[in-house]
């Protein structure tokens, strides 16, 4: 069986992920704003003796690699040996889409264009002369409607025909001005035979455009110097950077083609989205509506979430008594403790928060799918500007309420590297759903029902304020480079589909469950061992107790005792482990089956002490996954390390201050 590598590429929001799911039978989540596919995803399909490896690349507007998601796509295309490119094109937006297409056709890789959303173009009275387009671009072209599963067979057939070499489809190359073409030819002669002819042209053009990736790969000072001379010569003549000259030429070329290919060009008309926007991003109502939507999402998360939470809690308690009742009397007592106190209690106390997390992710996915998220970024731009960032940094922050890890990945659409690092560093201060797990345990235990929402809200607010303050400090302290202005496409509003939202929610919640089943299970067992040996009857004499006691003097000023210290150790793996660890400590301490941690906590701590604990959880060192993703995304240990140290010091300072001031007032 022959193997072929197929790359799916297109503008953000062109339906690429939908096509990927249809082709591979995968169920990846799609969104309605730029940056949903931030990583390359792979899927497979076997058909007619060929095995296709299909790769879904992040949505990009060009191969000029300005933002990180563009770099991911560009590096992949240039580095991997791709057999066929499938370029998904938004038919209702040809001018913009073809800019990328022109660059792709310079690559010398077989390419098929899939004209998606042809139904929307029809609705807008946009008649495209497909045959003309196909002939002038010298490329295979298929019309599809991915959302209605139309045209997929045609697309696959074209791809297969290319693999069987029945058809050739490389597309045309733009002829630039004569003097530019001459310089391109001159540069081509500099290369040895490591590239074929078409590659030589591409590499020459890319190097004229100062492509850092290829500059590194070529690694020859003499050639690069000669290219620089060519570039200088051209720039002197055109009086602007050659990258711009080429980009403008591509744009003009597309305009020229489209003036003939689009039969009936339509004029501006007010779309439904425009009408909705008149209300939703209205100068006066926009912001209040945004606040109401946020309030509703959080209300849904907690209010609706509380019912299934009770069921799960009862379920685990029944299960735990059941295991206990069938356990052979006085046999394997260590194992019994491991299963009941370690595993069931540990995992159970984390799984119980699953409904909250599902509702929160449901809310976020509805915002994404509907297209409102981009509007929120627009609305928040003014505010974000005041802290030195812009609207695009808002989307990661919003996702950060769910989980910091995808939030950090969502920063890839921010063009300015500096703004991106600042956003990444401050993201852990946004209270994620794992921290929420800790809050939902402690708040009801220490605060009267009427005050509970205020306490919770204040924690979220403190996180946000600290994030803003940190951004301000980072801006002044570290970065003085130029930034990149706010530039974002507004997607058309879509009715979020029930299935899609559910799938989306499940995709993300699954990660949480997976974490409960792996990382948290492992840590529960490790922590159980530390809390069982060498003396299980007195937890203060176990290993974990000893560690907690050793560091007690450090944390005493914040109001933490050794039990909290021991649980904080667990929270290094993941914040919600704090809860399961407390569960283990109290369950073992009692040697009874009472899992009502909350009541026990009330005996040991005061409300102000509990608040100090929650602040520490909110601010201190992020979880392992966040540290790992920070390292990966900033490509440096330095920022990951900085994040750990900075946040821990900040957490200590804030908890200390609040606890001490609190003691002064409330004692």
């Amino acid at each position, binding site marked *: 069986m022959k193997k072929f590598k197929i790359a799916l590429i297109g503008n953000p929001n062109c339906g690429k992920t939908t096509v990927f799911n249809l082709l591979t039978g995968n169920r990846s989540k799609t969104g309605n704003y730029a940056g949903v596919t931030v990583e390359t995803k792979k899927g497979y399909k076997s058909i007619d003796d060929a095995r296709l490896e299909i790769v879904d690349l992040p949505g990009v*507007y060009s191969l*000029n690699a300005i933002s990180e998601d563009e770099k991911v796509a560009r590096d992949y295309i240039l580095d991997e040996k791709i057999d066929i490119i499938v370029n998904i094109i938004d038919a209702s937006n040809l*001018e913009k889409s073809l*800019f990328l297409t022109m660059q792709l056709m310079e690559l010398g890789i077989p390419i098929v264009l899939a004209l998606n959303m042809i139904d929307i173009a029809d609705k807008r009275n946009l008649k495209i002369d497909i045959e003309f387009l196909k002939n002038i671009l010298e490329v295979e072209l298929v019309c599809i409607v991915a959302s209605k599963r139309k045209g997929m067979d045609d697309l696959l057939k074209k791809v297969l025909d290319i693999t069987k070499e029945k058809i050739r489809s490389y597309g045309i190359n733009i002829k630039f001005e004569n003097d530019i073409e001459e310089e391109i030819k001159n540069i081509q002669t500099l290369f040895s035979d490591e590239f074929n002819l078409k590659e030589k042209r591409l590499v020459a053009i890319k190097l004229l455009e100062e492509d850092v990736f290829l500059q590194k790969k070529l690694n020859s000072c003499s050639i690069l110097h000669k290219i620089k001379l060519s570039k200088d010569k051209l720039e002197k003549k055109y009086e602007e950077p050659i*990258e*711009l000259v080429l980009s403008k030429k591509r744009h003009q070329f597309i305009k020229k083609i489209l003036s003939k290919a689009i039969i009936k060009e339509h004029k501006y008309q007010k779309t439904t989205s425009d009408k909705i*926007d008149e209300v939703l991003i209205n100068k006066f109502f926009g912001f209040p509506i945004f606040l109401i939507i946020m309030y509703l999402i959080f209300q849904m998360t907690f209010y609706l979430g509380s019912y299934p939470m009770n069921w799960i809690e009862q379920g685990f308690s029944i299960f735990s008594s059941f295991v206990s009742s069938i356990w052979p009397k006085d046999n394997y007592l260590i194992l019994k403790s491991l299963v009941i106190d370690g595993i069931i209690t540990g995992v159970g106390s984390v799984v119980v928060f699953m409904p909250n997390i599902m509702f929160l992710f449901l809310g976020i996915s509805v915002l994404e799918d509907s297209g409102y998220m981009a509007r929120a970024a627009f609305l928040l731009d003014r505010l974000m500007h005041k802290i030195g960032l812009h609207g695009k940094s808002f989307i990661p922050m919003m996702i950060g309420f769910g989980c910091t890890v995808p939030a950090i990945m969502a920063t890839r659409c921010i063009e300015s590297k500096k703004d991106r690092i600042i956003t990444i560093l401050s993201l852990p201060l946004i209270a994620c759903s794992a921290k929420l797990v800790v809050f939902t345990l402690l708040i009801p235990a220490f605060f009267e029902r009427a005050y509970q929402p205020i306490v919770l809200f204040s924690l979220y607010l403190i996180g946000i304020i600290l994030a803003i303050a940190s951004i301000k400090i980072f801006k002044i302290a570290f970065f003085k480079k130029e930034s990149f*202005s706010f*530039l974002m*496409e507004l997607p058309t509003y879509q009715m979020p589909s029930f299935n899609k939202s559910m799938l989306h929610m499940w995709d993300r919640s699954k990660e949480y469950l997976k974490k409960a089943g792996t990382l948290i299970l492992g840590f529960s067992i490790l922590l159980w061992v530390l809390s069982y040996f060498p003396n299980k009857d007195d937890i203060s004499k176990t290993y974990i107790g000893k560690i907690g006691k050793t560091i007690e003097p450090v944390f005493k000023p914040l109001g933490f005792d050794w039990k909290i210290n021991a649980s904080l150790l667990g929270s290094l793996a993941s914040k919600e482990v704090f809860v399961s660890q407390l569960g283990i400590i109290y369950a073992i301490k009692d040697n009874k089956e009472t899992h009502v941690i909350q009541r026990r906590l009330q005996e040991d701590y005061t409300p102000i002490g509990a608040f100090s604990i929650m602040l520490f959880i909110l601010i201190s060192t992020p979880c392992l996954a966040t540290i790992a993703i920070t390292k990966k995304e900033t490509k440096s240990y330095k920022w990951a390390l900085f994040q750990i140290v900075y946040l821990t010091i900040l957490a200590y300072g804030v908890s200390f201050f609040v606890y001490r001031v609190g003691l002064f007032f409330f004692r």
Partner: protein
Amino acid sequence: MNLSELKAKKRGKILKILDRKEVEIKLISIGICVDEEIMMIKNDFSGAVIVAIGDNRIVLGRDLSDKIQIEAL
């Protein structure tokens, strides 16, 4: 005049973009190029603006819209 001065529902033609080349290339790749006709959809005279190019709606930060020179149509 600058794009930021264009009132909502008014049209303009782009004359010059006075920003770094990276920004200008990004603008071209999204459809905003010299000689293109552009229409202002939303301009509250503070904060970002929204413009239309064909059926596309694009948000531009105010600082960016200050750097795009246009001729009102």
